[in-house]
């Protein structure tokens, strides 16, 4: 049952990624060119609702469907890793037009060359794991 719930949430998310056009390379390019409000509207709306959701869960100590407390892990304090790591991510996002969610949505949509992007992303993650101790965090 739990697996089914994860699958259904994933399907809903995948449909959202495609229908919002957040998976479209063209929308990402348009966003970085400041030529449309669309992507900013999507992220902004998601964050506004997200802030309300998280605050409500904390305020009323809402539990999960399975009765466990819902916990939020604070991100580690650091400057370098977020700025440098984020910057490198942004270079790749601008080039491939695909972040880690849409990559998989596009695979399902049949744009199979995106598999090259996924392979690259797995390789990039692997390289990070190999050299992470030598990077500023």
């Amino acid at each position, binding site marked *: 049952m739990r697996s089914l719930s*994860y699958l259904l*949430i*994933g*399907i*809903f*998310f995948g449909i*959202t990624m*495609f*229908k*919002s056009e957040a998976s*479209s390379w*063209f929308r990402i390019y*348009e966003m*970085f060119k400041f*030529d*449309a*409000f*669309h992507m900013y*509207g*999507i*992220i902004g*709306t998601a964050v*506004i609702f*997200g*802030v309300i959701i998280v605050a409500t869960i904390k305020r009323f100590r809402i539990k*999960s469907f399975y009765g466990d407390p*819902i916990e939020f892990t604070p*991100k*580690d304090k650091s400057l370098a*890793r*977020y700025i440098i*790591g984020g*910057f*490198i*991510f*942004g*270079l*790749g*996002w*601008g*080039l*491939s037009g695909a*972040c*880690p*969610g849409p990559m998989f*949505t596009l695979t*399902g*949509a049949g744009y*199979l060359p*995106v598999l*090259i992007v996924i*392979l*690259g992303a797995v*390789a*990039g*993650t*692997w390289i*990070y*794991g190999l050299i*992470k101790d030598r990077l500023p965090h």
Partner: protein
Amino acid sequence: MDWITQTWPWYVSGAAIAVSMLLLLLVGKNFGMSSNLRTLCTICGAGNSSEFFRFDWKEQRWNLIVVLGAVIGGFIAANYMTPDRAVDINPDTVAELKTLGFESAGAEYLPDELYGSGAWTDPKAIVLLALGGLLVGFGARYAGGCTSGHAISGLSNLQWPSLLAVIGFFAGGLVMIYLFYPIIFG
């Protein structure tokens, strides 16, 4: 039925992303896609090369199921909910993309030049896609999250580190498009 077959407006799309995050929280999980890339490394045996990949990947099985759902969702949306896949971007953007050689701008969901079936035999497309993926994977893990983990989950939880990461995402994207695109595609 128009609202299903048309592009979802930004406010519907944004709300739907927040609902995805809410549902995951309610089943006791956190919304973040790039950690799956690490799990895939572990499954492929990366644990032999770095301690970073030595963890019980079965604890992350739930997130791989979410990803499988995202693949199925993409299939459903593309094949049954989108009779016309053309993305209606700004005409100025279309004109500009055509000068960079992207003839499919305004007529397709993704540029043919990178994601069309011809990509498999185009060394430049293969290199660019692989490089783009490499930077995304490396950067996401270095920054500890991607658009879902930082821009959505992190900002929703008012995390300063996530704001820094999002600023980094945008800075990187702007440098790629304003500085490198004219060199790569010009």
